[in-house]
């Protein structure tokens, strides 16, 4: 694996974060959404755009916003003008990848303060339905002619997981219930369903069995941003920097029909890389709070297992026992996750990083987990069941 040389010259911290509202339709242009988030992150860090050396932009497919070369287009709103600006991309996993790429901008010694911005506007692809755009992520020759719906692939993975681990839909629905309730404490949240029950999930519209409407996160417009700084700068900017302790990511083979979908091996490898860098050998004990990617409810379970926060097939048990509740022993997605806060693809991943930042600083207010937290993790997932990105942060 990677990271043969662990002698970094520069420690990197997160010193500010910003979010827009997440809503199904926002009037702002993608550039303006990026600006809203970037500006809030700068304000929170007490910086202005002049203080920023470099900008990293993340966004999932250009087909959502309907702008080719979207990094170029977003640069202005993301503050990336007259500056080195780059757009990185690993599908749905992009949101967590943005601060990973921003990490080496700082760790290389070439940038001192970096603005990392992620944006997605799904509502542009209004006709016939934003869902339709997902068709173009399939293999154009061997898959797309079958006229697929993206939910198919999730349903296939979910069903395989249920089959291999003997998990019931009731247990999976608990994740949706937890996250859609958690989201009520989040000022950006698109959904807040304080009274939702497992029964509501199980009675919601069946889309692609075993996936039902409330198993899925809503489609959203939104943006998120964080400011990263070198150790010296971070100490100057704030008394409470949150350090990036580990980064990791992996892409599995493109050919997802050639492998078992029951376990996300690519997330395991990505976590292994991040843990090694962070010096973590027992994640279940050493990670205090985590935001695994939850565009679908089963994905939270799947990813907990990939991250080593649960043993294989154990995540549903932990969920049932309440371990993953906000006041539990291992709070998972205290933000409300994508299921509750919303899913503007890349921005949703970066929202998770922001949540860990606020949790570790004790600034999550209504969402603050009960136990003291020192080390947190955010993870995202993307492509054809293929990409895993992991970041470990600590105070």
């Amino acid at each position, binding site marked *: 694996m990677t990271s043969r040389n662990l002698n970094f010259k520069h420690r990197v911290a997160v010193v500010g*974060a910003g979010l827009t509202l997440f809503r199904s339709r926002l009037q702002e242009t993608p550039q303006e959404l990026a600006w809203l988030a970037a500006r809030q992150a700068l304000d929170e860090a007490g910086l202005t755009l002049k203080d920023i050396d470099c900008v990293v932009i993340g966004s999932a497919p250009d087909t959502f916003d309907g702008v080719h070369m979207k990094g170029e287009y977003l640069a202005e709103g993301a503050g990336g003008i007259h500056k080195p600006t780059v757009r990185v991309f690993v599908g749905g996993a992009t949101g967590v990848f943005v601060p990973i790429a921003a990490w080496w901008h700082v760790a290389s010694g070439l940038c001192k303060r970096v603005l990392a911005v992620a944006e997605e506007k799904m509502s542009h692809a209004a006709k*016939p339905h934003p869902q339709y755009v997902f068709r173009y992520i399939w293999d154009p*020759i061997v898959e797309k*002619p*079958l006229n697929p719906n993206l939910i*198919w692939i999730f349903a*296939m993975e979910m069903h395989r997981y249920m089959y291999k681990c003997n998990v019931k839909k009731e247990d999976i629905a608990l994740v949706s219930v937890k996250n859609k309730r958690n989201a009520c404490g989040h000022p950006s949240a698109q959904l807040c369903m304080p009274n939702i029950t497992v029964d509501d999930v199980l009675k919601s519209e069946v889309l692609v*069995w075993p996936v039902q409407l409330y198993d899925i996160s809503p489609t959203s417009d939104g943006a998120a941003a964080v400011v990263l700084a070198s150790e010296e700068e971070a100490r100057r900017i704030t008394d409470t920097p949150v350090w990036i302790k580990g980064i990791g990511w992996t892409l599995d083979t493109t050919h997802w029909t050639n492998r078992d979908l*029951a376990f996300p091996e690519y997330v395991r490898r990505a976590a292994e890389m991040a843990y090694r860098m962070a010096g973590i050998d027992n994640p279940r004990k050493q990670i205090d709070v985590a935001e695994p990617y939850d565009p679908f409810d089963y994905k939270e379970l799947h990813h907990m297992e990939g991250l080593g926060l649960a043993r294989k097939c154990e995540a549903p048990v932990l969920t049932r026992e309440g371990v993953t509740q906000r006041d539990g022993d291992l709070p998972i997605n205290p933000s409300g996750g994508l299921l509750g806060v919303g899913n503007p693809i890349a921005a949703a991943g970066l929202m998770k990083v922001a949540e860990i930042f606020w949790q570790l600083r004790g*600034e999550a207010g209504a969402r603050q987990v009960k136990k003291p937290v020192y080390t947190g993790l955010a993870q995202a997932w993307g492509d054809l069941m293929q990409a895993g990105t992991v970041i470990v942060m600590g105070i």
Partner: protein
Amino acid sequence: MSGVTKPLNPRGTKYERADFPVFEFPVVGKARYNYTTGEALGRFLAGLKEGKILGTYCSKCGRVFVPPRMYCSYCFREVDGWLEVRDEGVVVTAVMSYISATRARLERPVAVGVIKLDVPGRQFDDHFFPGLMHYICGAAEEDVKSMRIFGAKVKARWKPPEQRTGSITDIECFEVVRP
């Protein structure tokens, strides 16, 4: 900092209906491509037209690739050759779709899944196998929901030769083989 809930006052102007000027940009016909299929998929598609499912193999690791590629993803070397796999196999995972690609409700749900294909003289575990996504026909909703379909034997139902175009849709579906 107690009492503070971040993010502070997140912004955005939500709307339900665009009752203000917007630019509606028709895309129909504006993003058209003609993919070069290349060596691997070009031959695979020609095989489908002839009613055959073709794969490639790597002699070093023993893997068989369907859909085929000309390189081994795991050994990073050119594959060693082609072989014909059976047009039958077992269902690895399957689901029942009640919606279309545009998210419209379907009149009748359709089953889709991943089929692990049989290759004479070779065995594959669950971790890597030649496999295709396709429609599964002859499965009742209950077969899918109960997961009885997992592990079921299926066989390709081909379109008549004159209707084949060299596409994955030359196979109509994989049909459940009743014992």
